């Protein structure tokens, strides 16, 4: 919403400065986005006088002017000027070298024009950004003092641009803004008196609602026929105002509607009455009816849209835009003025569907004052008569204002309770009355009964009045109070949250960099990772390659790793902790810590050569994240199975009983191809919510350390087992052979090759025996060894390697 200072002052009696007005606007919720004050730019321009003007020796249309600056002791300047009115004796606006010309943004320099030096410039209105006039240079009044700043001899109209929140349709007009400022103590709202214009004849065009539905869609339509007008330019001050707020003056009849729209938030429309056929029916459109609108585009209407129709069909899209064919032109003689009310929701829907952003739609969908239809017609009539002449008919009034009268109570105690500021009934009453409310009653407790003004559809309950009182009183005057709180803060993160934080920091500690990637991705990528179901599509994706919810984080990490490689940063190690989606319903998502490593294990190094990343890197990442998340990693089983996006032979699942805690392994080469990325890539997905919560314990005390005083003994065993036997089953069998004595089993060698028969492999383990009672004898060690060999044989068929 834009307006100028002079326009505001038509409604607000105030001496406040531009800065003070801007500050207060922002602090009452009418946020100032820009203030354009021409004075700030024009202050360096000065008044000068042309003392002589001669023909330029080398150009017919240029004049060689001698210009007196008024600066004491300064010689007259020589300025070449092409303006037809450049002549001796006039006072002009002087720009000197070094100054910026507002229109072009160019810095003025001394230069030669057709061989003659020019030491400055005399400006036209357009060059100073003061309108369109470029027919000649500005001629200042004769008594303008020489050398004075332009801002001391001309008045300028600063322009405000403010953002209006959707709840304040009343401030889409200058008068509403003035009212708020007056309430906030920045001046006095000037009274508005609108004398009805008496009609002299009955309008030949009638207005009829054809049905209740039509009446509901357009509850009130006020019309007036004005005959014998003469369309032309509107007065200069009107054109200046419209230009200042970025509107293009068109003709008096059109400018009337724009001026009233911006001044009173009251959209109007003016038809060329001679182009209308028969009477006006504001009605819901019939399917397929079309209209060529003022923006010269054709729109197809539906029964949801309101058409302002004559006997031939829609001549306007009600509340949105007029029709081109019945619009006013230079030759318009008889007009029909429309001042109507529409159902805001319908206007919003129509505007949205047709994609029309008009000043009328903007106001109607937010809510136009229901009592403004007659007022608007009278204001419009008055301006048309003033600017274009003509003779008005009696007013036509179809329908009535929709009910708006709402009595709302306000207990000043609520202002204190909700806003923490003490305002008594009197203070509340003053503010509300300034805003146009009527206080109907005040009870002994001080509770007010308030009738809201018709132009404030946002006020419907007590809290709305509380807000108004607090807003005008000023949020800055609400005392700042510290929140009461426990003297010693308690833990606030849940177990799940702390485990997520720990997993994240564990992965970062292992050298992976955390990413945050989109929750959506290309559908082809979703399909490669078990997703892509229609329920997880986006109906309106931001782009065609972000059209499905991600079923896994990995495709995003893989493509991110490739982008890094393409930028010359290979061997990415990335992770993300975030949701993946398993369905289209709320809650069908998992919290996953996903890690991915690409390429080599590290950079080339003089002593530690890198190797391609492999599944065990991913397994280590998964186990680290699980350990940080509190999973009992020593008790997990590794199964040689994983979803289809992993390499079938080089991937696994980490399980706790039947519960899947993580997948890890090489990413399937076919999937890498689908993602258009280069391998090798290894990855893991850890399901943080699947990690069992630690058991609640009464104390934080740990069990007593039972460190044995006796030296542990290590013995190595190499077993020959069928090649499909999992190393983990050898370890598990050995560990279980003598639970009291065996403290640990680790695999230190795996061999498969010529020295073994085909289909066999050797798994060598180191078993740690930890005595607790006394030092082990050789016999006891041998007995334990026999148990281990027997247990492994029983579990795997493995024999001790000879």
């Amino acid at each position, binding site marked *: 919403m834009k307006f100028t200072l002079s326009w505001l002052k038509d409604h607000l009696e105030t001496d406040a400065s531009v800065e003070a007005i801007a500050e207060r606007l922002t602090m009452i919720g009418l946020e100032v986005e820009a203030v354009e004050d021409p004075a700030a730019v024009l202050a360096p321009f000065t008044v000068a006088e042309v003392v002589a003007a001669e023909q330029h020796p080398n150009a017919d249309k240029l004049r060689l002017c001698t210009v007196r600056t008024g600066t004491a002791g300064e010689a007259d300047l020589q300025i070449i000027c092409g303006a037809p009115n450049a002549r001796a004796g006039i006072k002009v606006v002087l720009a000197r070298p070094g100054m910026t010309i507002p229109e072009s943004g160019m810095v003025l320099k001394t230069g030669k024009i057709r061989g003659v030096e020019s030491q400055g410039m005399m400006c036209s209105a357009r060059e100073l950004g003061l309108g369109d006039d470029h027919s000649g240079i500005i001629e200042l009044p004769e008594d303008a003092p020489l050398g004075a700043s332009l801002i001391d001899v001309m008045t300028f109209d600063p322009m405000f641009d403010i953002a209006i929140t959707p709840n304040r349709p009343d401030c889409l007009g200058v008068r509403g803004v003035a009212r708020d400022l007056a309430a906030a103590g920045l001046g006095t709202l000037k009274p508005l008196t609108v004398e009805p214009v008496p009609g002299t004849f009955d309008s030949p065009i009638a207005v009829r609602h054809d049905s209740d539905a039509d009446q509901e869609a357009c509850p009130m339509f006020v019309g007036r026929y004005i005959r014998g007008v003469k369309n032309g330019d509107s007065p200069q001050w009107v054109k200046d105002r419209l230009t200042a707020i970025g509107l293009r003056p068109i003709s008096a009849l059109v400018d009337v509607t724009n001026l009233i729209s911006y001044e009173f938030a009251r959209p109007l429309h003016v038809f060329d009455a001679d182009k209308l056929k028969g009477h006006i029916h504001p009605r819901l459109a019939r399917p397929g009816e079309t209209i060529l609108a003022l923006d010269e585009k054709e729109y197809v209407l539906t029964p949801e849209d309101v058409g302002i129709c004559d006997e031939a069909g829609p001549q306007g899209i009600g509340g949105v835009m007029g029709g081109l064919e019945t619009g006013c032109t230079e030759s318009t003689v008889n007009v029909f003025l429309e001042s109507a009310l529409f159902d805001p929701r319908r206007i919003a829907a129509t505007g949205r569907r047709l994609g029309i952003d008009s000043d009328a739609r903007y106001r109607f969908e937010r809510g136009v004052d229901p009592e403004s239809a007659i007022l608007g017609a009278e204001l419009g009539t008055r301006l048309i008569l003033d600017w274009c002449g003509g003779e008005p008919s009696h007013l036509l009034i179809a329908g009535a204002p929709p009910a708006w009268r709402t009595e709302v109570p306000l207990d000043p105690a609520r202002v204190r309770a909700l806003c923490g500021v003490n305002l008594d009934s009197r203070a509340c009453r003053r503010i509300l009355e300034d805003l146009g409310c009527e206080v109907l009653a005040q009870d002994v407790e001080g509770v007010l009964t308030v009738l809201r003004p018709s132009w404030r559809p946002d006020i419907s309950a007590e809290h709305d009045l509380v807000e108004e009182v607090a807003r005008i009183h000023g*949020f800055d005057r609400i005392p700042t*109070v510290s929140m009461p709180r426990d003297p010693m803060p308690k833990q606030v993160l849940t177990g799940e949250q702390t485990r997520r934080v720990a997993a994240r920091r564990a992965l970062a*500690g292992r050298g992976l960099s955390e990413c945050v990637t989109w929750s959506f991705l290309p559908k082809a990528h979703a399909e490669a990772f078990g997703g892509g179901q229609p329920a*997880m599509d986006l109906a309106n994706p931001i782009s065609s390659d972000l059209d499905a919810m991600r079923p896994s984080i990995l495709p995003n990490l893989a493509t991110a790793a490739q982008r890094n490689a393409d930028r010359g940063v290979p061997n990415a190690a990335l992770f993300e902790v975030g949701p993946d989606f398993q369905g289209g319903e*709320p809650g069908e998502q998992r919290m996953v810590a996903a890690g991915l490593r690409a390429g080599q294990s590290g950079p080339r190094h003089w002593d530690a050569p890198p190797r391609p990343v492999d599944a065990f890197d991913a397994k280590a990442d998964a186990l680290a994240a699980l350990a940080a998340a509190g999973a009992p990693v020593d008790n997990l089983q590794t199964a040689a199975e994983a979803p289809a996006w992993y390499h079938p032979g080089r991937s696994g699942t980490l399980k706790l009983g039947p519960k899947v805690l993580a997948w890890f392994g090489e990413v399937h080469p076919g999937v890498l191809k689908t993602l258009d990325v280069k391998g090798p890539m290894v990855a893991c997905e850890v399901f943080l919510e699947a990690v069992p919560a630690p058991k609640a314990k009464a104390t934080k005390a740990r069990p007593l350390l039972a460190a044995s005083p006796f030296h542990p003994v290590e013995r190595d065993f190499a077993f020959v087992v069928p090649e499909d036997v999992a190393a983990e089953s050898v370890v598990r069998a050995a560990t279980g052979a003598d639970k009291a004595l065996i403290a640990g089993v680790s695999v230190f060698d795996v061999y498969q090759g010529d020295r073994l028969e085909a289909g066999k492999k050797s798994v060598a383990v180191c078993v740690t025996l930890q005595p607790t009672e006394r030092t082990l004898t050789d016999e006891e060690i041998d007995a334990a060894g026999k148990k281990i060999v027997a247990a492994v044989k029983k579990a795997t068929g493995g024999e001790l390697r000879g």
Partner: protein
Amino acid sequence: MYSMRLLHSRSARTGGGLFFTVRECYATARVGACAPELHPLMDGSMDDLDTLRDELMTAVEGAPDLGALEEVRVTALGKKGRVTALMKTLGGMDPETRKTAGQEMNRVKDAIAAAIEARRAALEAVELDARLARERLDVTLPARPERAGSIHPISQTWDEVAAIFGQMGFAVAEGPDIEDDFHNFTALNFPPDHPAREMHDTFFLPPRADGSRHVLRTHTSPVQVRTMMSQEPPIRILAPGRCYRSDSDMTHTPMFHQFEGLVIDESTHMGHLKGCLQEFVEAYFEVENVPMRFRPSFFPFTEPSAEVDIGCSRKGGELRIGAGDAWLEILGCGMVHPNVLVACGLDPTRYQGFAFGVGMERIAMLKYGIPDLRTFFESDLRWLRHYGFAALDVPTLHGGLGR
């Protein structure tokens, strides 16, 4: 012995203190070995013993290396060694002579053994010095590579914000990214077709069997609704998380992060809202007395509503929070609208409170000087390493939030 050797070699290099004393002891032992005290009653055979001792002592002193020294030891003290052989003669002596001679012989034997050990230590020290002189690394070579990972600024901000509000007693609440219309809009007092719904460029999922459409949450406010519907006041929660709006340009991304705060009880008012946010801003930006401006605004789910600006300066293109005369909008807030309380099953005549919403990328950008919102989601390792945080940089109030 090893320790003594080590000490000796180190004392030779450092030349002082404790080690000097040890070296003295060592020297004393050598002198003792060279000049054993002779028994006054020794006869002619003692001359042989003296000769043997002198001879062996000379051999020990002259042994050029550890191998030669071992040969001397075998020659003297081995099973067939000369001292051993001499000791065997004791068996043929009468008890009186044997006692005297035995003592003398043992004395010689001990002296030679001590001399051999002393010589061994000296030779080993020389050998170690020689070895250390040979062993040289180019210590300017780089150590073996280790990867340094990083924490994304959004996660770091999450941790910082949770630390600050945790101190004020806010729990962290979470909810689903895919939401239904009720939680995202209706319960938050967005009337159907109200222009406010258009302020949110909502992502929709396909129509469900009943014709309704789920959305990607446009804010984390649905978590407020879920919390109020599942928990009795008093409520203090922080709801950080991903949000989605169909918008993409210099300053908008289709996904972003927000944290929403909600306080519901019977007495919290707008003054507390101001206090809470003032404390947050000062703690988060680690600047005292940040000027703040609460401007009336409009959100469907709060009334009164405000937008909050903080004071800053932009001198020389550098943004400084808390100084200067410019204002920077950082969040929206307000008192929870009674309609929201009612939708969540709370009695608005009894309960009241405030809510606020902050863009996490925005405050991270302001605090850490990150210039471009879109880079948060590009996974560019150069960016992640530059703007990211070390794994162990866990923000705490007592240890400091920012790094």
